């Protein structure tokens, strides 16, 4: 029934496309983790205005569809920035994809960081303080080792989600795997083998990653 030979014939181009997906994933995950950490620190800090802004940012980014933000960053942000600096700007599609996916994922990352930090029992921090440990040392020796263990499974599955989302970037002309699939399918006038092959390939890769994360999470939760 399936003749997937076409999928195999174009494996080199598809592989190059997948590498672009991985590039976008790594960049946007880095951006997302960095902004997420900042937003989390803001959310847990003492000034009320900073807490409110961070909470609003987290809520807002978590409620934005990735696809809409991708278009917004790619076509609206350059126009707004051009008005600001007074010259015409254009964003490289990979830059737009990194910003959009980074911003969307940062809200989710921030909530995961917060959940991890808040899961550390207060008594541990109070005990450390009673023993005369300095706040940075409490963070480094008491809070982070426990918090990281708690948030790692969630962070990993969110990163898998982000990897899945990187397939969208072809809509702003990032030459990723789906972009290549679209072009080849049009040239060959055979959509079936490439779309089916890509769906199967993603299924296998993501399933393998998910199972790996499940196993690691299980081991982390034993302690």
């Amino acid at each position, binding site marked *: *029934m399936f003749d997937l030979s076409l999928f195999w014939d174009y494996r080199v181009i598809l592989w190059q496309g997948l590498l672009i997906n991985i590039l976008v994933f790594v960049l946007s995950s880095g951006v997302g983790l960095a902004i997420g950490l900042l937003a989390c620190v803001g959310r847990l800090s003492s000034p009320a205005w900073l807490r409110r802004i961070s909470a609003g940012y987290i*809520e*807002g980014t*978590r*409620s*934005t*569809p*990735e*696809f*809409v*933000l991708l*278009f*917004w960053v790619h*076509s*609206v942000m350059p*126009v*707004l920035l051009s008005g600001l600096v007074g010259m015409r700007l254009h964003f490289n599609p990979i830059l737009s994809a990194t910003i959009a996916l980074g911003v969307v994922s940062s809200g989710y990352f921030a909530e995961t960081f917060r959940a991890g930090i808040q899961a550390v029992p207060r008594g541990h921090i109070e005990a450390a303080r009673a023993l005369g440990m300095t706040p940075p040392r409490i963070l480094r020796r008491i809070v982070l080792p426990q918090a990281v263990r708690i948030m790692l499974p969630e962070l990993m599955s969110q990163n898998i989600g982000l990897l*899945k*989302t990187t*397939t*969208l970037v072809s*809509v702003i002309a990032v030459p990723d795997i*789906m972009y290549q*699939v*679209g072009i080849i*399918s049009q040239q060959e006038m055979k*959509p*079936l083998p490439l*779309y*089916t092959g*890509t*769906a199967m390939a*993603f*299924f296998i890769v*993501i*399933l393998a990653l*998910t199972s790996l994360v499940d196993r690691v999470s299980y081991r982390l939760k034993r302690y």
Partner: protein
Amino acid sequence: MELWTRTLLANAGPVLEGLRVTMSVSAIAFIVAALVGLAICFARIYVPPLRRLLGAYIAFCRNTPIFVQLLWVAYAWYDLFAWPTDVFTAAWVALALQSSGYLAETFRAGFESVPDGHVEAAHALGISRFTTLRRIVMPQMLLTIAPSLMNQFIVVLKCSTLVSVIAVPDLMFQAIRLTNIWGEPVPFFTFVAVVFIVLIVSLSAISKKLTDRVHARLAA
């Protein structure tokens, strides 16, 4: 301001029509996904020979990017099954495919949260299996998973923006089309982003309230 009236207000008709299409794709996809998910959940429990196959189906739905599924359904399914014949059907089928996998797992979690004793008690009273399911299991199960159902609807609504890629005239499709006609991306894309953020923030707020009420109800 003049820019907004000239572009957005002048095209309120197509924009609202797009919003209607977005809503109907999401609603149809969610309802179909819930029905299929429920059927899969019960089939996995009561029809052991199907367990492996349905497990594979769920794994496939959950572990494939929605965008890949959408294009696969829209462009490859017609060659495979001679169906779906129009993009609107392809759109809700793809969205439902993805969500049915997640919802099957949600329903299972809900099913497992119903204490065995309740089912056994119904059995002891001579209530038939179907009635037990309908009167004893389902009400408790739906109460527990109501917040998760709501969250899955939010996911469907978010993913529904993708269907513009296969030329379904939803809100995003209209925004792209009007931007290309008017050469003004700012009002259209900003409007779409604001509409979705407002919609989803309000739905999440409802979902949060629902979660609290369910917890209060279960604790009582």
